[in-house]
């Protein structure tokens, strides 16, 4: 017997999926098509005419040292954001998993940062680390450290990484906690009786059993770091100093809307489109198969 619901005609099912199709068409297919189209042209400085250049924009981009530097910046930035947010989240989840009393409160409080929009999170961190009036800057000053992310490239990168990772910890924490709680308690107890102490148990039992969650989060966090951190970077550093925090998605904005080089900006969007497609394919291929067991 067919268990799925099946429809006789074509009209009703089409009607039912229409809203989704419309949303996808308006907000994805149309802009993506526009990006691909525009990436083949160079507009004149006043936007009055466009000149067809084929793959010229791409050729120029790939030989542009600034663009290649931005690739490296993105790689560093997204690895740091992913490692920091997942590492801290896993640590907190392991602690919360061991907690019996008050775990509800603890969990609720940990989830709150997720509700803060990236741009707002960026402003919050900017206030704390403001080079003149920031609270943290002031305390660092007392300790004899002169914080200045406006001039120091490393400090700028550190700040945007922390601000981006912060809100993300909540999200990762939830998944890690759910993953930890899905591991049967008796398996952990069996390992304890087998002689494994906490760290050994974590390394040989818990972490391997958590690997499907870890892998899922890895992909999701990389995608996040690539695309959704725009607000944080825009509010804190605007890509500076000296493009030290200009990740690919910020460069799309900076070159297109600030630099008015729409052709190059469109070509960069297309490259990002390819990158995210690859990530999605990886995600589906491995997560659907479940890692490890």
């Amino acid at each position, binding site marked *: 017997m067919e268990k799925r619901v099946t429809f006789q005609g074509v009209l009703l099912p089409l009607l039912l999926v229409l809203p989704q199709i419309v949303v996808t068409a308006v907000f994805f297919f149309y802009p993506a098509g526009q990006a691909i189209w525009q990436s083949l042209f160079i507009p004149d400085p006043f936007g009055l005419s466009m000149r067809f250049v084929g793959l010229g924009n791409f050729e120029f981009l790939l030989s542009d040292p600034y663009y290649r530097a931005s690739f490296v910046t993105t790689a560093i930035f997204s690895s740091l954001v992913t490692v920091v947010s997942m590492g801290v989240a896993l640590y907190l989840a392991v602690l919360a998993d061991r907690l019996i009393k008050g775990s509800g409160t603890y969990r609720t409080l940990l989830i709150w940062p997720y509700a803060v929009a990236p741009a707002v999170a960026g402003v919050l961190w900017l206030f704390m680390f403001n080079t003149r009036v920031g609270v943290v800057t002031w305390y660092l000053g007392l300790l004899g450290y002169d914080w200045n992310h406006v001039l120091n490239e490393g400090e700028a990168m550190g700040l945007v990484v922390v601000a981006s990772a912060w809100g993300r910890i909540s999200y990762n924490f939830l998944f890690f906690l759910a993953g930890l709680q899905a591991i049967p308690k*008796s398996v952990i*107890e069996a390992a304890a*009786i*087998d*002689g*494994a102490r906490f760290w050994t148990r974590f390394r040989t039992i818990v972490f391997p059993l958590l690997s499907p969650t870890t892998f899922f989060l890895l992909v999701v966090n990389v995608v996040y770091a690539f695309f959704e951190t725009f607000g944080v970077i825009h509010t804190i550093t605007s890509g500076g100093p000296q493009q030290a925090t200009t990740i690919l998605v910020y460069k799309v904005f900076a070159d297109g809307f600030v630099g008015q080089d729409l052709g190059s900006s469109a070509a960069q969007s297309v490259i990002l489109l390819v990158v995210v497609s690859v990530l999605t394919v990886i995600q589906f291929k491995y997560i659907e198969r479940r890692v490890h*067991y």
Partner: protein
Amino acid sequence: MATVTLENLRKSYGPTEVIHGVDIDIADGEFIVIVGPSGCGKSTLLRMVAGLERVSAGEVRIDGTRVNDVEPMDRNIAMVFQNYALYPHMSVFENMAYGLKIAGTPKPEIAERVSDAARLLQLEDYLGRRPRELSGGQRQRVAMGRAIVRKPAVFLFDEPLSNLDAKLRVQMRLEIKQLQRRLGVTALYVTHDQVEAMTLADRMVVMNAGVADQIGAPLEVYARPQTAFVAGFIGSPPTNFVAAQLLRPGAPDGARLGVRPEHVRVVSPGEGALQARVMYAEPLGAETLVHLKLADDALFTLRQDGTAPVPEEGAEIGLAWDDDAQMLFGPDDRRLQG
């Protein structure tokens, strides 16, 4: 090989005490079965011996040494869990070798001990498989294998057979018994199944609401239950109870008489100790269970030989039994003499 002693062992969760002081002395190599209905605290007791639950009061001693504050891994025990608790991401070999590997056992010795255990449990062909590729019975064997390769002083079993089907359960029951005999390791086995308890135990501990009601050899417990609970829990169908004053004027208020179904004989109506009406009979082949209703609507069961004539439904009959077959329990459910 080791002795295990529980002395006035108590467990509380907050203000609620769930185990009210249990004393058991287990000899080296003895097979002890803790049996009781769900919620009686039997698993909690076992987990305290394992070190998975903190002891609230009293003492657990393994081989004479107090282990209350000793971590599970340092107690020299092995445990078989109800759901087997196999490591799903490891092969059968790795599952069995895990404890040895952590203990730093040399590789050749690990291989030897695992293959010995695998031979003993007929798992040799499955060493490369993952737990999910095994049947329930095979998983059960792997869990056993994981316990025996470490050569522990004490085996702990937490309802290890309750996830198996009836036939496999009987087979594994025998295997566990043989294995324990061959290895001579002290074993503590928790179950809610009284048949398992009767067949496996050297001595059994009948738990009731956090108290060990009776400790003794299975047949001894069966023949001379010390409380009404034990009389009712051990034996299937359970012991029949009637108000003692019905048969013995002068017995204290609330006292009850217990008679096992197999000790009851059918006699002509008007004779015997009690009168009853036959409700229905269950012929099981070797024996027949006859369900009866007494004058006060209480239920009563008798068990007779399969070849004996089965009384008709609705018939009035008399019930008789020998005096030494009846058990008198006081109002506090403790056994009184007589």
